[in-house]
């Protein structure tokens, strides 16, 4: 069955057509890998923020260290929203280790001293 994907790897947004084992329209290796993953087990990086202890109007941005399955997005968001970080926070500090046993960490994306 023919299925068209728009690549999200880079802002170019290539239109890639997957027809069984035939894959056309990609312009780089990353695009090919993306569409192979997307057509079998779609994954996403998640970015969000966590609360900081003792701060009322300041949150710390975070991301997943690796992509997580699309189906786990809202479960991971629940864990992120339960968490409170302690200052000082270093850049890319692991805040939640191995979230929901997905072998992925939640790490900070800002230094907040």
């Amino acid at each position, binding site marked *: 069955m023919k299925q068209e994907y728009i690549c*999200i790897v880079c802002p170019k947004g290539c239109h890639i057509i997957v027809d069984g084992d035939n894959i056309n329209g990609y312009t780089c290796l990353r695009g090919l890998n993306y569409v192979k993953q997307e057509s079998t087990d779609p994954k996403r990086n998640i970015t969000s*923020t966590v*609360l900081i202890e003792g701060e009322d*109007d*300041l949150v710390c*941005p975070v*991301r997943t260290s690796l992509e997580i399955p699309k189906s786990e997005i809202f479960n991971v968001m629940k864990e992120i929203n339960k968490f409170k970080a302690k200052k000082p926070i270093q850049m*890319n500090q692991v805040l939640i280790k191995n979230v929901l046993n997905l072998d992925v960490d939640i790490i900070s*994306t800002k230094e907040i001293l």
Partner: protein
Amino acid sequence: MKINNKTYDIVIIGGGSAGLSAAKKAYEEGISSILIVERNNELGGILNQCIHNGFGLHKFKKELTGPEYAYEYIEFIKENNIDYFLNTLVLSINSKDKLIVCSSSEEGIINISYKCLIFSAGCNERTSGQIMIPGERPNGVFTAGLAQKLLNIDGYLVGKNVYILGSGDIGLIMARRMTLEGANVIGVSEIMPYSNGLNRNIVQCLNDYNIPLRLHNTVIKIHGKNQLEGITICDVDDSLKPIEGREKFIKCDTLLLSIGLYPFNAMLKNSGAKVNTETKGAWVDQNLETTLDSVFSCGNVLHVHDLVDYVSDEGEIAGENAAKLIKYGRKTLLKTIFTKHNSNLGYLLPNEIKVYKDLNEVSFSFRVKKPISKGEILFKDGENIIKRSVKNDLIPSEMVKIKLNNLDFNNLNELSVEVNEI
């Protein structure tokens, strides 16, 4: 009143992606007397609230979030002790005396003399006042970028049932972001027949969460006296006028506007710099110098970008040329070529090429006015074609950048860029 007087070789107005990159490049070019003047309480500009990833693929060959991208530059600024003033507002630019006047609560009024000035103050969001939606003016109508700042920096979700007008990237990113935080994002309306955001954002921000995008549709009324109670959306015809009988009421408590950005260029304009009427930013040459002596402009205050990597590139051009002007002085000008473009381009930068001896490379940026599925891009000197390239899927939301190199610009009489559908 105490007035502080300071002097720097290069003064940079705005510590966002353009200004940070200009500072880094100028420092690498051997200028150490650099000052960045920043209005906010931290460096990084809009990157600080853009916590999503997708930045840095060109510049760092990896996918970074906004704050991580900014960090790469801020660390450089700090490690090399480049000066910066935070919480400092520039009040005026006096290009004749090469002086800017700033104010900050800590330092009071500060006069700063410069040899070169780099203006990198970013852009503003268009607001509801600029599109004149009929109806009430209740709470609950936000620009997408303001809602983004409140959520990603301050930690406040501005609403629970959200509608988004305009399919610009910030609107799409906010559709996903608010969904992740538990809001119900009802839909996005775009008045044009095509989206103004990047394709990847339609996929990963709307399609992933089943958020409908209504093209050729807009908000025609805002309801609610004190708090937003709902909106009326309506399909539009080819002349973008609402079609009678195609109205629909949507109950919502929040309306986000993602209806475009424009260069925050007022201060430079008021200082006498010539304005490019198409970009609303400054009129610049290939070195990004404005019509004011030794004043450069780069980043979103020059023209609104879709990729921060390109903003950084532009900052580098401004930083490098400011540094070179200080180090080597001005070269002898052979001639000036004004650039032109055909009607398929929304704008073209630079506006003019100052031809010096040995000039053989110029970077051009432009946007198409409407989507072109297969376009032929021509650089022409009169009828003579200098360079031809073909590009698929040209859309207004994606800036095109092309370099002309190994060319003797002194041989050119004029330069025009055409995009033609083929």
